[in-house]
């Protein structure tokens, strides 16, 4: 513990372990030739998209250079898998009204990686009235709005108005949250804060609510061995101003990280020895662990440096300021 404010050594070991396993698993992130036609996007594009979103963040924000380098290598690999963005043009032509190609593309666009055809396609599809029809899941809509911002597009709805309809907007009784609701709440925080880059966007009410109730959710989801959700809750904890460090929760998550760096999604990792099965069972939690440990590590540094430098604008990583509402 550093002044009671965290354990940078443990956090760095966890990030290194996770990135090491992910690096070894590159083969399973590779996109198959039928990725734009009949491959299951949940088994192909989803893993690659998560890899890109979180390694981009770690590659910019982690305080340790060798960790940033390692994350950047994975991010570059992901971009390479999209064939420098050509993938997005193909996906959008195949499914012009789907949001996920736009959300995925925006992950790369925020790092300045663009593809001319994809840009023209996105500009055309996202200005349609049809694009502005409300979607079922408001939390997900927040991600679509962020994607539009990252791509420099006009946001199709008012971010604050959509947020108001979500868990983070409503602040439900904390004892009512089931698994789906907790996933929703963590992602509300990730979208609002741009994955922890813009922590000052959390309102004082939301901050107070999260600070008060996160420990109880962490306790139960650790007990349920839902490791990905525990990691996401630890990430949310680390986005709070003057972030608390839950040493016990971190120890429990560290204890399930295998020697090879993998973290199972739920319960114990599969024992079949089938590497593809292991990959699907572990890649998500392993990425979340690296992400959460990165945010917690940044919070440690801020605690060390004292409150005066605890500016939420992280060097090189802050999202450009945006209007809360669509023009």
């Amino acid at each position: 513990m550093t002044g009671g404010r965290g354990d940078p050594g443990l956090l760095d070991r966890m990030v290194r372990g996770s990135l090491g396993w992910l690096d070894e698993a590159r083969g399973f992130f590779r996109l198959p030739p039928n990725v734009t036609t009949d491959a299951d996007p949940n088994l192909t594009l989803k893993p690659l998209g998560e890899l890109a979103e979180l390694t981009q963040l770690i590659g910019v924000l982690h305080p340790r250079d060798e960790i940033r380098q390692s994350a950047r290598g994975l991010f570059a690999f992901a971009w390479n898998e999209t064939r420098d963005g050509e993938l997005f043009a193909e996906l959008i032509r195949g499914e012009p009204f789907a949001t996920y190609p736009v959300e995925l593309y925006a992950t790369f666009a925020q790092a300045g990686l663009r593809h001319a055809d994809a840009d023209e396609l996105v500009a055309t599809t996202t200005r349609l009235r049809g694009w502005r029809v409300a979607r079922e899941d408001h939390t997900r809509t927040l991600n679509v709005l962020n994607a539009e911002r990252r791509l420099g597009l006009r946001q199709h709805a008012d971010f604050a108005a959509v947020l108001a309809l979500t868990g983070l907007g409503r602040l439900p009784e904390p004892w009512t949250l089931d698994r789906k609701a907790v996933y929703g709440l963590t992602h509300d925080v990730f979208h609002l804060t741009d994955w922890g880059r813009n922590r000052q966007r959390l309102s004082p009410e939301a901050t107070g609510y999260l600070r008060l109730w996160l420990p109880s959710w962490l306790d139960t989801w650790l007990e349920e061995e839902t490791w990905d959700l525990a990691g996401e809750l630890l990430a949310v904890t680390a986005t709070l101003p003057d972030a608390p460090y839950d040493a016990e929760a971190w120890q429990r998550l560290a204890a399930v990280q295998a020697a090879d760096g993998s973290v199972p999604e739920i319960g114990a990792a599969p024992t079949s020895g089938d590497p593809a099965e292991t990959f699907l069972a572990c890649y998500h939690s392993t990425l979340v662990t690296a992400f959460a440990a990165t945010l917690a590590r940044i919070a440690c540094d801020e605690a060390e440096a004292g409150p005066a430098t605890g500016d939420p604008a992280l060097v090189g990583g802050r999202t450009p300021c945006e209007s809360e509402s669509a023009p």
Partner: protein
Amino acid sequence: MVTDRTAPVETATLAAEVEGLLAPAEADGVFRDTRECSSALLIFGLLLISPPTPRPKTDNR
């Protein structure tokens, strides 16, 4: 509410039972989630992507 309470009782056993009823160990948690959630788990486990988009084969020309 009138019940048969005439059976003989072992006092020592009863004392142990009283202690047990006063401070029982915590029961294992019973965790349940909304059932509509189970099919959506994969969706919510994800950070980014939609559920699989229907892709009728007939679209491929």
